[in-house]
């Protein structure tokens, strides 16, 4: 009987330990660390109404930036993922780092997010491939306004809400497990989506992929592609030719069981696959089930390579066993 109790206590502790280890992101601690005010942050409103935040996107950027090269910082006792270092990051996180698009590296290196860099000179704020019909947001993307971190002109939070700050509201302090896409808080990395479409589902690496490996990494699901599609149209399902060959690189299709893909057996963080039910990191590639995702080739924020690619496509040679050749091993 004592043994039984001991076992239950052990399992309980193990469960608690695992729940922390897998990235419980609910923020607690010192309020002032995040909510202190800086010049220009608050603005007067009409008489009789409360002050309101302005520079709302910069507020996100302010917390998630760092002046040194560390990509995880501490604020009020919380570990905060850094998406924008003002110097070159040593270990960029899963989404990359906006440093590459913020400086002189060029627009092609990343998403031109307001508060970090100016509007893309070529596309002038218009997401390539955008189709209103593919965007589930009731509001839709407004190319007249810059890309934001969150809201209808962004990726995070509820995209049915225009105000980025309002769209992300109640996420950081909410219970964020299980990640089932039922709310922005319970969506993978607060990617909530809109228009009745469920948020993104995935497994969040506790270190945001800072040292992603085959054994320990973010796990994506095909739902991430639905979010990409919201702004970039249906690049892929339209890509299938009538005779079963591709006009455009597909996503959302299983890694084939046969052919050159067989050699991709161990998960490579440089070419991640999506799983239907990601609940933990797995090093195994399941051919015929795991799927190609936008993030197999691209990173979400910014990186050192053009087109937000995970590798240098311009210089990638078929002789190299990386980049495209991780999947296309016999090219």
């Amino acid at each position, binding site marked *: 009987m004592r043994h039984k109790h001991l076992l239950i206590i052990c399992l309980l502790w193990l469960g608690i330990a695992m729940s922390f280890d897998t990235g419980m992101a609910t923020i607690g601690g010192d309020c002032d660390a995040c909510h202190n005010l800086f010049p220009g942050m608050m603005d007067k409103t009409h008489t009789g109404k409360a002050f309101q935040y302005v520079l709302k996107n910069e507020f996100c950027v302010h917390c998630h930036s760092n002046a040194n090269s560390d990509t995880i910082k501490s604020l009020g006792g919380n570990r905060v993922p850094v998406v924008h270092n003002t110097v070159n990051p040593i270990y960029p996180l899963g989404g990359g780092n906006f440093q590459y698009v913020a400086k002189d590296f060029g627009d092609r290196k990343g998403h031109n997010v307001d508060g970090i860099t100016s509007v893309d000179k070529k596309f002038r704020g218009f997401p390539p491939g955008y189709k209103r019909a593919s965007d589930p947001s009731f509001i839709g993307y407004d190319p007249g306004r810059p890309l934001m971190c969150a809201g209808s002109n962004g990726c995070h939070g509820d995209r049915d809400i225009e105000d980025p700050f309002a769209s992300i509201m109640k996420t950081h302090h909410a219970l964020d497990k299980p990640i089932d896409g039922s709310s922005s808080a319970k969506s993978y990395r607060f990617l909530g989506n809109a228009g009745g479409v469920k948020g993104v589902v995935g497994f969040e690496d506790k270190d945001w992929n800072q040292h992603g490996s085959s054994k320990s990494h973010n796990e994506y699901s095909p739902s991430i592609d639905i979010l990409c599609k919201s702004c970039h149209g249906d690049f892929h399902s339209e890509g299938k030719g009538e005779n079963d060959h591709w*006009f455009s690189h597909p996503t959302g299709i299983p890694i084939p069981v046969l052919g050159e893909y067989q050699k991709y057996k161990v998960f490579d963080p440089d070419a991640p696959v999506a799983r239907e039910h990601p609940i933990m990191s797995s090093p195994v590639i399941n051919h015929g089930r795991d799927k190609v995702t936008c993030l197999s080739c691209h990173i979400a924020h910014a990186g050192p390579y053009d087109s937000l690619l995970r590798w240098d496509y311009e210089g*990638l040679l078929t002789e190299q066993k990386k980049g495209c050749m991780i999947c296309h091993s016999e090219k």
Partner: protein
Amino acid sequence: MNRITESSMVSAVDPQGSAVRRSILMSLSPVFLFFICLLFSTDSADARVRGRCKDCHAMHNSREGSVVTRAGLSGPFSSMTIGGCMGCHGQNPNGTQNIIVQGNMRIPQVIHYFEDGDLAGGNYIYVAEGHNPVYSRGHNVEGISLQENSPMNVPPGFVGGVNIPGGTGPLFWSSQRQLTCAGTWGCHGNRIIEDPFAAMSRAHHEDDGEIDGSTVGRSYRFLYGILGKEHRNWEYLASVGDHNGYKGDYTHSSMNTISYLCGECHAKFHPNANLGGVDEVGHAYDSVWRRHPSDISFGGVHNGYLDSEYGNYVQYSLESPVAYQNPTGRESKVDMDSIIMCLSCHRAHASPYPDMLRWDYSQVSARDNKSGKGCLVCHTKKSQ
């Protein structure tokens, strides 16, 4: 350091030093030659496409927000290629390059303005729209030429349902159906598969070190099932001892000859029983020819090879090449086992002359004693 000093001393004081060096060099030379041979054999054998993915492929038919274009064509293109077949193999029709080097790749150009630079298959410039085309000079391939008028809108000599590698050829060739580079209605790739790109799938990236016809990638010039030896420069600057090696079979018991490929569409011009057979072409030993034969050896002519006019064709001619049972591309001699093939007289793509001939048939005359030219390369006594 000591070793260098000792070595220097040996050469300085030892009168045998130079002999020793010579001996070492002599012993090393076979190794050196072996590596040179290896280098060359590797270079000429494996034509698998390598290099930068981006030179041939675009992932989203999108470059800087615009659709992908190349060679006057705009996407989307099948198999995510940039410009389809012609995007790579006809990159600059007005240019003067017959082989374009792109990164690590050397890409043969089937259409260009390089004077005297036509590759073995010829040059589509003679039949291409926008370049004063004369349709009788070549195959009218979709995307290069418009379709010819009747009766040349179907392959001359076409027979439906002939045996082809992997299955059966099309039963019927519609007058609306234009020739394509590959697939059922083309020459390259697996002709069982209708779509040109699906028919060529994987071929360019396959290890083609051995041409055994087992796959498209391992077939001569991606002509499925056909054997041969591929000249590394597609016969640009080829010589009598270094050229394409064409496969022939005078027993007509195989489907892997270059002439059989032609016969898949022009069946009545080939004596193989699978195709036109002797009824259409004739037979070497007991009849006169109804049509000029292919896949027959010089030794197979009636009245025998000895003292025949073909006995005077002794050195391989790039103008009137012959096929071999086991081609190496290094044959310089022609003998009784050398084999007449379609490409002895014709180019595969297009030529400056009518009927895609290698020479101007209207100018070949037995009376003018131009032995060694055109038909008279083989028919040596016709000019005497």
